[in-house]
């Protein structure tokens, strides 16, 4: 298994390299550093000297791939691609346009993100699967039909509606929670509960419907009939047998996202003013800070690949037939 994991992680290198080349192409070749300088300087201050100064200040004053003026290894080493792109591989994210260290920002901002994403993820998984099982238990009845219609209706509502509506109802009308903001330490729960609740409600339609479909497919299989024939109660059939066998497709969708949890949610964090990585990213997008966007893209890809490996490992835990060789 260790061999397998190591091999899979090695596969990650070409993929991450591809990601880097793609973002590098977008941010340095289509959009030259000159364009970048122009945006940040603003229309009034664009002079060739100002652009050159900005590029020197931010370390963009190097050739893209090949440095003709340098000697030996530096010919390839002292270039933008190595400086700005390959350094990400050793998690050296460099500085944002405002001069702050990106790695440090990530380290401090991942905690608030995690504080929202983790409870949302865990409670959500539990709630959605329970709701889906409930519908499956009453399958074919009006309750089930109503549940499915409700799910379709809920998933047809824009996610922004849940956020804005939730903030208005719980924050302004009922005064349950502060509308937005954040505080570290134990007092944080006041600020965390509303975003978590809103994300939970926003996700229910899609997920419950998906899980219900999985369970309904399992329930038609022979082993379920056998289990019933043995005289097991319907609840036991559902929880032990159906749920157990549906674990593989459930894990496929679920484990992959776990490592990405601490990147946070862009929409939720920016609406509720949570100083996490999601709002960091959205601010960077709006301020056109490409250094941050590039770092987050790389981090996101890295975590996705870790998630894929974790998914494979999780299969061995729920299904003894799966062995990783």
């Amino acid at each position, binding site marked *: 298994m260790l061999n397998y994991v190591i091999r899979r992680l090695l596969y990650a290198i070409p*993929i991450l390299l591809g990601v880097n080349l793609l973002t590098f192409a*977008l941010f340095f070749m*289509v959009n030259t550093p000159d364009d970048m300088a122009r945006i940040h300087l603003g229309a009034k201050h664009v002079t060739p000297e100002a652009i050159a100064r900005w590029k020197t200040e931010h370390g963009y004053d190097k050739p893209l791939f090949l440095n003709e003026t340098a000697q030996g290894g530096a010919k390839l080493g002292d270039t933008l691609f190595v400086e700005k792109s390959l350094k990400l591989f050793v998690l050296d994210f460099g500085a944002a346009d405002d001069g702050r260290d990106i790695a440090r920002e990530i380290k401090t901002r991942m905690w608030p993100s995690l504080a929202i994403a983790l409870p949302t993820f865990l409670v959500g998984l539990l709630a959605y699967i329970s709701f889906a099982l409930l519908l499956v238990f009453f399958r074919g009845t009006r309750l089930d039909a109503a549940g499915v219609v409700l799910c379709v209706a809920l998933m047809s509502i*824009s996610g*922004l509606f849940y956020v804005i509506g939730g903030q208005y109802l719980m924050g302004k009308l009922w005064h349950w929670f502060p509308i937005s903001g954040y505080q570290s330490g134990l007092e944080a729960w006041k600020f965390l509960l509303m975003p978590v609740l809103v994300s939970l409600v926003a996700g229910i339609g899609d997920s419950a419907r998906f899980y219900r479909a999985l369970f309904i497919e399992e329930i038609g299989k022979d082993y379920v009939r056998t289990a019933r024939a043995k005289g097991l109660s319907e609840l036991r059939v559902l929880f032990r047998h159906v749920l157990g066998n549906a674990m593989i497709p459930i894990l496929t969708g679920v484990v992959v996202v776990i490592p990405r949890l601490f990147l946070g949610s862009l929409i939720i964090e920016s609406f509720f003013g949570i100083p996490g990585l999601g709002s960091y990213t959205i601010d960077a997008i709006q301020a056109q800070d490409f250094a941050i966007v590039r770092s987050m*893209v790389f981090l996101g890809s890295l975590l996705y690949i870790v998630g894929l490996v974790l998914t494979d490992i999780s299969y061995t835990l729920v299904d003894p037939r799966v062995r990783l060789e």
Partner: protein
Amino acid sequence: MSFKPILLWSDALILLLLAVVAAGIWLARHNETFRGPLRQVWAHPVGASTALILALYAGIGLLDSLHYVDRLPDAPGKPASYSGEVQSALDKLLTPLREKVEKTYSAPFATHLYAKETVTGPDGKEVRDFPRLKHGGTHLADPEKAFWPDVLKRGGLGVLGGLVAWLVLHAFALRSRGSRVVSVTLLGILLTTGLLVALAPHYHVLGTDKVGQDVLYLSLKSVRTGLLIGTLTTLVMLPLALGLGMAAGYFGGRVDDLIQYVYTTLNSIPGVLLIAAAVLVVQVQIEAHPELFDTAAARSDVRLLALCAILGATGWTGLARLLRAEALKLRELEFVQAARAFGVTRGRILLRHLLPNVMHIVLITVVIDFSGLVLAEAVLSYVGVGVDPAMISFGNMINGARLELAREPVVWWQLAAAFLFMFALVLAANLFADQVRDALDPKAKGRA
């Protein structure tokens, strides 16, 4: 001619798309495999009534895609000149709504402005009060007394008109076929239309926004943007997904490895970030070349198309993966083997033997993706990487009004209108997609 038709790039693509859809329907009617499912969708009450609603939206979008510029009054001795403002047939139809601009917010059916101003009273004194609207309810001499009778009278007439239209339609077209659900849907649509036609010219039925524009007008104009994002993206995504997915499955080996590598790489990047990165790049390019666009409409049009292209270029991986698996399965089947033994070329096998057998997957995915894309527009516009901020869209409507819930009294109508119009569209699309899937993929029936 007092106007000159203008064909924006997106209009041309819509026409192309329409031609493709029409050809597709014509082909499907003459094809055994698709005729049955098509009829099944149409025969199902939910399928037919959601198709009706989608057709209504499509109609609004199409009207809004026939663009023109007005001819300016002729100056003697000069060639004809045209206005720089691009308008559409829908604009023309909604002229009463478009031109009735108030000063700022006003609530639905309001006769007075949302904000207080200094007004001169009848006795000549200046007082702070809510001034009357410039256009909404101006025909009422005494709004307090005359408001309800007037609304009821006009509304009643509108409802009556809708009812008559429904009865006429029923008597001639719908009697022989169509279920009760369909005629109820039709009744709903006609009554709403009747009400709006009767009331909208005299009141701001859904209120006005911050700069005083009629919210109903904005909502109707947003439909086109949403539909474009939902459909044109498909136009970009399909060739990529079909070509690469089927090639990967059918050829296997190196080709498969390479294509799989590409889509794993694309997949590994968080979706919003990839889209954001690409949109930022496009934005910079557009700003750097203002000389390429002669009107503001042309510029936001190009930005919209770029957004569709980006969504398509990042969104093909899911379908490609499905198609790859299907092609992998199909290439081992007897009919493909037989074709190969007869010496049919690879391109021909892919085109004539594999493609028709994966069309149902393609169709299902396209319909399911549509609703997701309409919703995505709103989120992307909020993040700041959606359509041009000057373009009327659901996302921009929501974005412009989301902070106004903090006001007292609450400004809710703009948000409510955007969400409601979007909800109706997406719900219809979702239900329709379910019907299409059930019809084309009998195995999936009853599962969800």
